[in-house]
C-alpha cells in the first residue's frame, strides 16, 4: 500500500505494520495530515484547525507501548492539558485546561499522540446533528448536504472520512452511537461507570460516558481497553477488572440469545432502515443466533424521561459558567455581579443551550419538581426494570440505532422537538446505564449508511464485541468508504 494511503487503515492494521517495521509513526501522521488538508474544507470535522497545524510525535522514546505513536482525535468537551477545550461554545472561548482528563492521561501513557485534533460537536453536547456548534456544522462525508449526526458528529465524520485513525466521543443519550450510524462507523457507549468521567465537561452526570468511535469492531475493543477502569478522581467509576476485550472478538454467535423489542419497529421508523435492520437480524439468525421478539413496554416514555432528567442535570452542571473562573465574560460597562452573570450567560450560550438550561431549571423549580423531575425518575425505574426482565432470558438486544438515516442540514433546526426524537432508540441505554454499540449494517438507496444497535447487560461489553464482530466479519459494510 502506498504510504499516502496509510490514513485509510484501521488502528490494528497500522499497529501490525508498525510492529513489523513496515511503517513509522511519522509516516502515518504525515498521511493523515495530508488527508486532513484535502478534505477538511468540505467535511469540517475539526475545530480551530488552521492550515499550519502541527501533527508530530514528540515522544519517540515511548513507541513500544500499545498505540506506538498513533494519533487519537478528541471531542472538544474532553480536557486536554494546555490544548483548547471549548465544548464548541462561545462561553468557554479560549479555555485551556490546566490538566488532562483521565482518558487522555491513559491514552498518552499507552503511547497515543494527542495533538490539536479536537472534533466538532453540538455546543455542550446538546444536539443530534452537530449544527448547534459555535463553529458551524460538520458535513456528513457520505453526502455533504447532510448532517453527520450528533453530538459527537465531528469525531464520527473524521473517522468516516479517514481524517482520523481513532476518535473519542461522549454519549449522554446517543451522542456516540447516532453519529456512528449516520457516518457508517463503529461507536460504543460503555456501561455507566466503566470509563472515568474525570475531565469530561459534564452535561448530565448520571448519563454521560466517554467511548470510542472507530473504523471497525476490533479497534473499538482496543480503544475501550485503553481508556476503561476505576479512577479515584471519579467516584462513579466502578472498580471491576478491565478484561482484555480483544479476546472477546470471536467469530461465532451460535446459541447466543438475542431479543428484538417490538416497540422499536413501529411507526416513525424509515421503511428502508427497518428493512435493512431486519436483514441484519436474518444474517445473525443464519450465523446461529437464537432470535425472538421481546417487549420493552415503557419505550414510548423514554424520550420525555430523558429530556427531563438530562436537562435538569445540565441546568445544574452549567451553573458554573458565570464569567468568573474561565471563558467569556460580558464586557458591558458598570454592571454589578448579578447583571454580569446574566449578561455573560445571555451572550455566551447558544440557542439550544439556553433552551435546555431553561427546561432543566423549570422541571426542578418549586411547584414543578414533583410533577416532572421526580415523576421522570420513577419512570426511569420502570424503564430499567423492562431491561432487567428481558436480560433474564437474553444475552443482548438488537435495534436500529436511529429511526432514519442522516437528514439534511437545516431540516430540523427550527423544530427542537423533532430533533429530540432522532435520539429515540439510543436514550434507553443511558437511562438504564447499559453498554451499547452501533455498527454499520447496510446502505439506503441514496447511499446513506444505516446502523445496527446492540445492547447488553451492565459490564457485558464482551458480549457486544462478540456479536458485533461476528456480524462484521460476515459482512462487508465496514469496508465501504465515502467518495470525497
Amino acid at each position: 500500500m502506498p504510504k499516502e494511503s496509510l490514513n485509510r487503515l484501521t488502528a490494528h492494521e497500522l499497529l501490525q505494520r508498525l510492529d513489523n517495521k513496515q511503517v513509522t509513526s511519522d509516516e502515518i501522521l504525515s498521511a493523515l495530515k495530508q488527508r486532513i488538508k484535502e478534505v477538511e474544507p468540505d467535511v469540517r470535522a475539526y475545530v480551530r484547525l488552521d492550515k499550519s497545524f502541527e501533527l508530530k510525535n514528540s515522544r519517540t522514546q515511548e513507541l513500544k507501548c500499545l498505540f506506538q505513536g498513533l494519533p487519537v482525535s478528541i471531542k472538544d468537551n474532553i480536557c486536554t492539558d494546555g490544548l483548547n477545550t471549548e465544548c464548541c461554545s462561545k462561553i468557554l472561548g479560549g479555555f485551556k485546561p490546566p490538566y488532562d482528563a483521565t482518558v487522555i492521561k491513559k491514552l498518552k501513557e499507552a503511547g497515543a499522540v494527542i495533538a490539536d485534533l479536537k472534533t466538532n460537536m453540538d455546543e455542550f453536547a446538546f444536539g443530534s446533528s452537530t449544527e448547534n456548534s459555535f463553529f458551524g456544522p460538520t458535513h456528513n462525508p457520505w453526502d455533504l448536504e447532510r448532517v453527520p449526526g450528533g453530538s459527537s458528529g465531528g469525531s464520527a465524520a473524521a473517522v468516516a472520512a479517514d481524517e482520523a485513525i481513532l476518535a473519542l466521543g461522549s454519549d449522554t443519550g446517543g451522542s456516540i452511537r447516532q453519529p456512528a450510524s449516520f457516518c457508517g462507523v463503529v461507536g460504543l457507549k460503555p456501561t455507566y461507570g466503566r470509563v472515568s468521567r474525570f475531565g469530561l465537561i459534564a452535561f448530565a452526570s448520571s448519563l454521560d460516558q466517554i467511548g470510542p468511535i472507530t473504523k471497525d469492531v476490533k479497534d473499538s475493543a482496543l480503544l475501550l481497553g485503553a481508556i476503561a477502569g476505576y479512577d479515584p478522581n471519579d467516584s462513579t467509576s466502578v472498580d471491576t477488572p478491565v478484561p482484555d476485550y480483544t479476546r472477546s472478538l470471536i467469530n461465532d454467535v451460535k446459541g447466543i440469545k438475542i431479543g428484538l423489542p417490538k416497540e422499536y419497529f413501529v411507526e416513525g421508523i424509515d421503511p428502508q432502515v427497518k428493512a435493512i435492520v431486519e436483514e441484519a437480524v436474518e444474517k445473525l439468525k443464519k450465523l446461529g443466533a437464537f432470535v425472538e421478539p421481546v417487549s420493552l413496554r415503557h419505550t414510548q416514555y423514554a424520550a420525555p424521561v430523558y429530556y427531563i432528567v438530562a436537562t435538569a442535570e445540565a441546568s445544574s452542571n452549567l451553573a458554573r459558567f458565570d464569567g468568573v473562573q474561565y471563558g467569556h465574560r460580558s464586557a458591558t460597562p458598570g454592571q454589578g455581579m448579578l447583571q454580569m452573570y446574566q449578561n455573560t450567560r445571555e451572550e455566551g450560550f447558544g440557542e439550544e443551550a439556553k433552551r435546555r438550561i431553561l427546561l432543566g431549571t423549570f422541571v426542578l423549580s418549586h411547584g414543578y419538581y414533583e410533577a416532572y423531575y421526580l415523576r421522570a425518575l420513577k419512570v426511569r425505574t420502570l424503564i430499567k426494570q423492562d431491561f432487567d426482565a428481558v436480560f433474564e432470558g437474553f444475552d443482548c438486544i438488537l435495534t436500529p440505532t436511529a429511526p432514519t438515516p442522516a437528514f439534511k442540514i437545516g431540516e430540523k433546526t427550527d423544530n427542537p422537538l423533532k430533533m429530540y426524537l432522532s435520539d429515540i432508540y439510543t436514550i434507553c441505554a443511558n437511562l438504564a446505564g447499559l453498554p451499547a454499540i452501533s455498527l454499520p449494517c447496510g446502505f439506503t438507496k441514496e447511499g446513506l449508511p444505516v446502523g445496527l444497535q446492540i445492547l447488553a447487560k451492565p459490564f457485558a461489553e464482551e458480549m457486544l464485541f462478540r456479536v458485533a464482530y461476528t456480524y462484521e466479519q460476515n459482512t462487508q459494510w465496514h469496508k465501504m468508504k465515502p467518495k470525497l
Partner: protein
Amino acid sequence: MAIDKNNVEYTARLARIELQSKELEKLAKQLQEIVGFMDKLKELDVEGINPTSHILPMHNVLREDIQKVSLPVEKALMNAPQKEGNFFVIPKVIE
C-alpha cells in the same frame, strides 16, 4: 401545563440568563410544545415506585485526610477573564 412569557422570564431569572424579548417569545412557544410532550408521563401510575436518580448502587467514597499537591495558583488562574495577584476579580458586590 401552560407555559407563557411570564413563566419563561421567571425561569430565566432563576437560571441567571438575561433573555432578549424576541428570544422570550420564541422560547415560550417552543417550551410550551416540549413540556406538552413531557406531560405524556402523566398517563402512568407511579404510585409506590422508587425514583432512580443514579443507575448504580451509590455510596459515599471517603479518602484519607492527607496533604497532597494541588493545582498551582497560577495554573488555576490562567483562564480567568480578570485576575489580580492571587485572586479572581469580580464586580463589586457590596456597595
